């Protein structure tokens, strides 16, 4: 079973990679005029799947390019050029491949869980595997509700390929069972919510970075990173999606941290002990609270606020990887030199 899981991960990475290439093709072929011609009014974005209350409805004109169904009869006035047609095809293939990759990815998780006879969240490797899957699944929900955002898939698949390859190369460990200290339902609650919210934060970074690029582009910057955003959805849309994802994830993350404290009280006798993991969870929480504040403060520009969200994700990454690499073991102070 665990060998099956390993193979599935490899396949998933490959499929993400092909999806990424396909997205890149779409991007390269994409014709701005053809896309902006198909502006349709108010589409609704409801709930990122579970719970959903956090995701804003977005109105105002948005670019609509359905991912799965071709529009029956394109009006002549907005007939896309041939390359735009091919771009759309590439984009749809990319979306389909992402679905396939997500299925393989899920298969890898399930088989890993069966092999270990527990939830697959016992170590960093499994943790990254799960977080990335949540990110992809949430992305597919967003894509389904808002096909116009499909071009973000390029960045999403890039992130997935990088993270999964990193997990595969650097973090891989064979299947081992769970310690008794971890055998608590609070642990399950804590870890599942941490994984879930981290996955959404991970997804949130994609529109956040895209917004920063697109915003620069819309303000007339035409130098390198901003030109990447030429064919991205509008900055305001990206910004709203960024906020929606973070607003959705933040309470879950808050709950996860509280659940962790409750579990730590029972297992270690103290709810909060400032060990490096706890410290970085605190830092992430404070940074995300800062993001929500900044966004609610009119005098703070939206791109500044969005930078804070990106910073927040860097602290989440720090907790996932950095803390495990730098601060564990006997030489937990080694990170300082």
């Amino acid at each position: 079973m665990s060998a099956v899981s390993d193979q599935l991960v490899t396949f998933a990475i490959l499929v993400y990679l092909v999806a990424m290439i396909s997205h890149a093709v779409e991007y390269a072929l994409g014709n701005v005029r053809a896309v902006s011609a198909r502006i349709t009014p108010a589409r609704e974005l409801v709930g990122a799947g579970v719970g959903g209350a956090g995701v804003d409805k977005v109105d105002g004109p948005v670019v609509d390019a359905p991912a799965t169904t071709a529009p029956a009869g394109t009006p002549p006035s907005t007939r896309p050029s041939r390359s735009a047609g091919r771009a759309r095809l590439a984009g749809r293939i990319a979306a389909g491949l992402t679905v396939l990759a997500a299925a393989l990815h899920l298969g890898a998780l399930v088989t890993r869980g069966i092999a270990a006879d527990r939830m697959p969240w016992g170590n960093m490797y499994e943790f990254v595997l799960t977080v990335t899957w949540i990110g992809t699944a949430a992305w597919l929900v967003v894509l389904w509700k808002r096909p116009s955002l499909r071009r973000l898939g390029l960045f999403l698949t890039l992130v997935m390929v990088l993270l999964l390859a990193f997990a595969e190369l650097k973090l891989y460990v064979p299947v081992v069972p769970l310690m008794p200290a971890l055998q608590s339902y609070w642990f399950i609650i804590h870890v599942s919510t941490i994984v879930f919210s981290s996955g959404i934060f991970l997804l949130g970074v994609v529109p956040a970075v895209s917004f920063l690029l697109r915003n620069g582009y819309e303000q007339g910057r035409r130098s390198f990173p901003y030109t990447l955003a030429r064919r991205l959805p509008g900055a305001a849309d990206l910004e709203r999606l960024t906020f929606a994802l973070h607003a959705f994830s933040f309470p879950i993350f808050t709950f996860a941290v509280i659940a962790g404290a409750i579990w730590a009280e029972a297992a270690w006798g103290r709810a909060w002990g400032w060990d490096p993991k706890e410290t970085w969870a605190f830092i992430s929480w404070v940074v995300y609270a800062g993001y929500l504040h900044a966004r609610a403060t009119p005098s703070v520009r939206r791109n500044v606020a969005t930078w804070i969200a990106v910073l927040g994700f860097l602290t989440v990454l720090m907790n996932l990887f950095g803390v495990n690499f730098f601060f564990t073991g006997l030489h937990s102070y080694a990170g300082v030199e």
Partner: protein
Amino acid sequence: MTTVEDRPASPPAEAPRRRPNPLLALLRNSWRQLTSMRTALILLFLLAVAAIPGSVLPQRGVNPENVDRYFVEHPDLAPQLDRIGAFEVFGSVWFSAIYLLLFTSLVGCILPRMRDHVRALRARPPAAPKRMDRLPQHTVLEAPGAADPQAIAAVLRRRRWRVQVRGNEVSAEKGYLKETGNLLFHTSLVAVLIGVALGSWYGWHGNRLLVADEAFCNTRQQYAEAKLGPRVDSADLPPFCLTLDNFDARFLPSGQPESYRATVTVDRPDGSDRRTADFSVNSPLRLGSANVYLLGHGYAPILKYTDRYGRSQTSTVPFLTSGDANLTSEGVAAFPDANVDPATGRRDANQQVAFEGLYLPTAPDTAPFVSSRFPEERNPAVVLAAYRGNLGLDAGIPGSVYQLDRRQVTNGKLKQVGDRKLAPGETWTLDDGSKLEFLGTKRYVTLSVRHDPGEELMLGACVVLLVGLMGSLFGRRRRVWFRVTPPDSGSPTGGSSLVSAGGLPRTEHPGFAEEFASLVAAVRDDGRPDRRAREGVE
């Protein structure tokens, strides 16, 4: 804490004064600055940054051994860092200053908002603006006959709007929950902080190791390490005693631990209130006045040493594990009073004896005997080196009871005189005719006993915090108005009255257009379902 609670009371008192006192003006300005959103943002950011050294540098509260090691490895830097509290970041002056300022700002921020919110809750939804068409959402519908403001109000009330009818106008508002939630959230942050403060002032904890059949009572002296909050006195510790009756550990065939269970007898120092209780890793023993947590466990070999004069002493020595899953443990059994010459009754400081080495619950069948194969006792053995000489216990330097004083070995005052592996029941005769017998082992557990009076408050505050946060993030405040213009006032539509409607989202609410449309539709359908009103879409 007191600053947090007291400060906000002062600024409103300043307000009525008219005289332009520069000091007061300065104070007022600083206060305004402090309670601004921008300051809150900066302080939040500072708080995050200030926490970083707490994860990079070893912290006394988390890992004192690492702090000691850091001092050894960085003899120049460490004292400097220590002076600025870098090894106790979360108790340092600067960290405290940041969060106290932040919470002062927080209180200064929520108090006025609470007042405003209470006013808003009491107030009735405001009158309609003259020009509805200036509102983000507006429409005009035509209602047959005279439309009734009360009927419109009823529709709104059914949808849980707060409604006010003024003549031919209906004002309605919804989404007070957002601000309520936000205030609850921020207030509960203060409550969490108060909980933390209560815990550190009135809480205490102690750690110790307890061997099976031994007892200890809850006094400061009986802990290996104890910390009492500044408002706790040794005499305040609740009187109880614990005896470890049994410790049961189960392991899977792979050696992976499956479950731990400690059984203790709890009573008062005078022996009253006797009862037994079980607890394990994830379910501590909750005594009401304190909680007892099971942190670790191990084996304590029982060693009987018979010195060259034939006098024997038995010692049960906990051997400590160093994180090895198969419980390879290390320890030292010291017999400083060995070899007291019965003729003179004098202790010879150079004839002291100690045994240092390993305990292996499941020793391998063949050498080397350096690590255990399984955490249960399937083939137990101690592997010990004998030392004779001066143990260095009288030098006045506090040493660990779990380690020999290495200096005595290096300076030749303590000499190794052989080593051996012993199974239970085996006896080792040393070169001087003295004997060591390995009698067996006892289980021991390491316990942490704690009392944190802030815990309930923190837990309750966390629940409120979450509820408030959801309300704050997902609540949306918005207003709608309907104005009925009756048919007789020169309406061009003859027998119909016109109803103009307008809507204003007061917080970001991208779905408001849909909500407004469905509200208007409900009002229209509530009037005459048979007739389609002409809806003026902008």
